[in-house]
């Protein structure tokens, strides 16, 4: 029996949510029902950050603070969380240090992006990182400002001191059971068995992990669903294990959680994940969602294919394993059965003779969708390539291996000549499309040129930089 209310902390005060349809976004709920209008709608697609709020997540006796886009988040996702909005930052009429620093740095002009930026910086300071260029830009990557040119905002981030928000003393109420309102139900099972049972019962109900893609249907398409199945609280899906031979990532593990593990193991993958969306997106979005979503430009997918990762799918009849590359059948179509879920992905760890690189090319460095993404795993011994797995995104209807290029390289001496041959082969591997992210000709050229970058980086012969962002 589904519950009819959600209890949360809103700016430090207990708050009970009732009669709010589950597909309502947190942003709409804040602005219309709670009349907390400091949180703004700039795009309703999770790309501008004007709607940024901060979640306090119970973690080891305290609260971990994470910035999220309230426009992409369904209200029931707030269960078990403390929600802080810009109205909750100042205490007793005194500006929070972040706000004070922003005022002193002249960090607002029109002011519309400002509350979201204050919240992003509040979460940044709560995270306890050193305020350096790299961390500050990372923290601000999800927030657009069209007036200031950011310099004063970055200055404010450097000078602000960490301090708690106005009121965060009360305990966060535990997340309740499923929630229903307005003939719509938000299912939030806790176990894999319960999740599978729901899949069997409601195969048409959308699966929601972080909601950073599905949330667009709520936010922009204004779609309502009779039932939504959240996998975020299924314990088995939240596992993240680094084994001797492989890394297993549960389907509900967020990018934020997976980031340090993948960063430590696979060169370039940390940077790649840091370029997926923004912190706001990565705090909700999951690698399982990236796989299930099956976009040809899903950023992690070429990596998973090149690394020969295995998917664990689970249905009423148990688990089945499948190479990630076989999962993608056609444009956004997968081999997932209607009663199945993605349970986890298992990624082999790198052997000492394996070289891995991944490169993403987009118009903007941060928070942009790839034009082309390449991922490469080469096994090189004594200068000879014994195995090559190369996968690209943005080059076909699905993320796909460059099999002809792989064949050319396998068994070849890792040399400029081999790269030249692979370049020629790769032209036959793909027939990319023209669209607003890039033209077909460009995609093809970059796919080939990235092999040159790979060669330069892996042979160590070049002292010169191989990318403008390394400068």
């Amino acid at each position, binding site marked *: 029996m589904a519950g009819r209310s959600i209890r949360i902390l809103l700016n430090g005060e207990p708050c009970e949510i009732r009669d709010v349809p589950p597909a309502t976004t947190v942003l709409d709920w804040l*602005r219309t029902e709670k*009349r907390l*209008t*400091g*949180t*703004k*709608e*700039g*795009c*309703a*697609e999770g790309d*501008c950050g*004007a709607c940024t709020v901060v979640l306090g997540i119970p973690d080891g006796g305290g609260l971990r603070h994470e910035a999220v886009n309230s426009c992409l988040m369904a209200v029931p996702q707030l269960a078990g969380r403390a929600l802080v*909005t*810009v*109205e909750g*930052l*100042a205490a007793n009429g005194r500006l929070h240090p*972040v*706000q004070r620093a*922003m*005022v002193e740095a*002249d960090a*607002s*002009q*029109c*002011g519309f992006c*400002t*509350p979201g930026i204050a919240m992003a910086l509040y979460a940044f300071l709560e995270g306890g990182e050193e305020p350096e260029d790299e961390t500050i*830009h990372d923290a*601000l990557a999800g*927030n*657009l*400002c*069209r*007036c*200031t*040119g950011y*310099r004063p905002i970055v200055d404010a981030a450097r000078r602000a001191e960490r301090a708690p928000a106005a009121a965060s003393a009360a305990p966060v109420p535990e997340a309740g059971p499923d929630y229903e309102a307005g003939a719509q139900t938000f299912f939030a099972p806790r176990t894999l068995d319960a999740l599978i049972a729901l899949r069997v019962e409601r195969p048409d109900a959308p699966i929601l992990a972080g909601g950073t893609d599905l949330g667009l249907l709520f936010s*922009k398409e*204004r779609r309502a669903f009779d039932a939504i199945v959240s996998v975020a609280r299924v314990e088995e899906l939240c596992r993240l294990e680094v084994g001797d031979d492989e890394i297993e990532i549960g389907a509900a593990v967020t990018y934020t959680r997976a980031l340090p593990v993948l960063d430590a193991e696979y060169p370039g993958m940390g940077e790649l994940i840091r370029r997926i969306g923004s912190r706001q997106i990565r705090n909700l979005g999951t690698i399982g969602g990236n796989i299930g979503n099956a976009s040809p430009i899903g950023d992690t997918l070429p990596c998973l294919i090149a690394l020969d990762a295995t998917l664990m799918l689970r249905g009423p009849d148990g688990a089945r394993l499948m190479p990630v590359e076989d999962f993608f059948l056609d444009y956004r179509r997968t081999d997932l059965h209607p009663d199945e879920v993605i349970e986890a992905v298992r990624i082999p760890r790198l052997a000492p003779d394996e070289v891995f690189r991944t490169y993403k*090319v987009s*118009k*903007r*460095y*941060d*928070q942009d969708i790839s034009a082309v993404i390449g991922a490469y795993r080469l096994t090189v011994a004594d200068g000879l390539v014994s195995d090559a797995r190369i996968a690209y995104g943005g080059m076909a209807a699905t993320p796909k291996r460059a099999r002809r290029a792989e064949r050319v390289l396998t068994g070849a001496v890792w040399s400029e000549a081999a790269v030249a041959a692979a370049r020629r082969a790769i032209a036959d591997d793909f027939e990319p499309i023209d669209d*607003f992210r890039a033209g077909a000709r460009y995609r093809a*050229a*970059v796919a080939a*040129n*990235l092999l*040159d*970058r790979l060669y*330069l980086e892996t042979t160590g012969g*070049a*002292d010169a*930089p191989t*990318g*403008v962002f390394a400068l």
Partner: protein
Amino acid sequence: MTGSALKGGVHRGWRHDSAEKHVTGRAVYIDDMPPVPGTQEIWLATSPHPYARILSIDCAAARALPGVSAVVTAADIPGVNDIAPIFSGEPILADGVAEYAGHPVAAVAASDRDTARRAAALVAVDYEELDPVLSIEEALERESYVAKPQVMKRGDATAAIAAAPHRISGEAGCGGQDHFYLEGQVALAVPQEDSDMLVYSSTQHPTEVQHGVAHTLGVPANAVTVEVRRMGGAFGGKESQATIVAAIAAVLARASGRPAKLRLARDDDMIVTGKRHDFLFRYEAGFDDTGRIAGLDILFAARAGNVADLSTSVMGRALCHADNCYDIPNAHFRGYCCKTNTVSNTAFRGFGGPQGMVVIELAIEHIARTLGIGVEAVRRANYYGEAPRNVTPYGQVVDDNIVEQVVDRLSERAEYEARRREVAAFNETSPVVRKGIAMVPIKFGISFNVKSLNQAGALVHVYTDGSVHLNHGGTEMGQGLYVKVAQVVSEAFQIDLDRIKVSAASTGKVPNTSATAASSGSDLNGMAALDAANRIKERMTGVAADHFGVEPAEIRFADNRVYAGNRSLAFEEVAKMSWAERVSLSATGFYRTPDIHWDPVTMQGRPFFYYAYGACIAEVAIDALTGENRVLRADILEDCGTSLNPAIDLGQIEGGFVQGMGWVTMEELWWDGEGRLRTHGPSTYKIPGSRDVPPVFNVHILEDSPNPHPTIFRSKAVGEPPLMLALSVWLAIRDAVSSLAGHRRFVRLDPPATPERVLAAVEEVRAP
């Protein structure tokens, strides 16, 4: 008794008046206003076709949806369906023909936004598709224009080019740009008694909204009051475009008899409303061995879109800035505003100036590459100087030229020559990542090209407690106009800034205003407010002189007090005394820019009161394998005259530069083959983020450079000019590409220099 030191006045970096409200979320934008019960929300039904005859519109199903209070089409507009700012025939709802994909054909009001949206989808339109014109090239071929071509001539360019020792010719273009103000277009219309309408509009131009609403409702201007407290960004996008949104809201408020709000969702905002004009250029120049230009012929073709809107003015400013800082003894500039079946383009910070400068800066580089000499040498050979090298192609004498001084100071400060050598040395050993460095000087004309727009009004009240109410025709869009004008009044009365309250711009308080545009906000409104304050001050001076028994000339306002020698009264005491003496403490002020004139037919005159100067040196890196690029450093020196508020001006310079950097690098508007804009949200249209700002970013305001012309406290306008400083980024990227062929080849690389375009240029420059 002496007063406390003044906490106000001009030439100091006072903070934005709303800064604390911004950071706490308490600053109220239109969509944040407490809803009046019964307020209707509006959604638009738009054309999916770029060009189609509307055979019929059936609104029955939409009207039948529960919650819907009104559905209107062109046929339901009570007044005149036309809000054209310059010409006529520019409807708010398509009338008989839809002229771009996204053209509003109907609007629905309902109890909530989702219902209005569902109803809008039920509006059934029967279209007959017509043959659209989708590109500038096509429009030129078919001579499809929104207005007569504009021609500017000085000397005989054709003869000069023919006689010159060297000639170049070429074709280039530049992209458009979406404003991407964070607050989308929004207006709330609230019916009043009689047939009056109160309109809250996110507009830079309250008076034009007033006129547009009055026309569409068929009521006199005095029946419409337009108010705007603040905008969440505008950048030119809320000049004429805001009128469309407000007029539709007013028509639906009238039709439903209830308050009605139209807030465009981001996709609709980007698809339905206009942007910066993209341009196509064809140029030909003749020059001598030193690069000195003898003659220059340029064809400018702008994508005006479906209607004229402000396009002819944008084109006028483009032609007036195709000289940038250079003397062109023989010029022939032709401007074509192309009618295309795409959204009507509009004002955007720079207003044609950036596009005009693209082509001259390109020509300078083309000349340098052709002669095999340095770009700076070509610039030096052509800078404006003493007579006769000081007359623009439009006949204005450049009488305040400081460009070489700005360039010299900046070059020295930024160590331009040394760094140019460092860049070259870096490139020697770096085959993949290439650096480039370039400078651009800027001369930007200040004043509206249309003489009548160069006027402003203000209203000042002094209350008996010494507090001041200030109102003027300028609007606050984040640029800090309110604090600047308040500083002017603070300076006049010598009272603290916090004693002055600036109230929302309202057509009921200050009438017949101009748009807050053309960088003119503080020039015009500051002067009008000063006029009003001085009128009151003169009266208070009389009262104080009588009180102290001295001549008015001996009365002095300082430090929140009014002095006669050593004796003094607090400002508020004199205010109260004035009231007791029945002396008015309220005044209107007015200002019109002197000495300007313009003949739009011959395109000659003195359109600008003065020029603002600046220069920027940018250093970039490109990746020759992917075309990815990044700005590594920018050094800016900007002429603000004697700045009214250096903190605010710094924000305008930095923000303008970064916005311009977006225009010349990553911001790409992409239409598909059916004329549909496919980059209509931040997920597809990329504006700069914090990491894109140059890691070394040295921005300075030119010191000791009061405006020689009598502007408000000798300051200069700063809103638009810095945007064009970002052309240095584009030129630096070109320089980096050019380095791959030893700077000997000239290749096409139009802004925006996206990775894709940079890689194409790299391939071209390396081609055998």
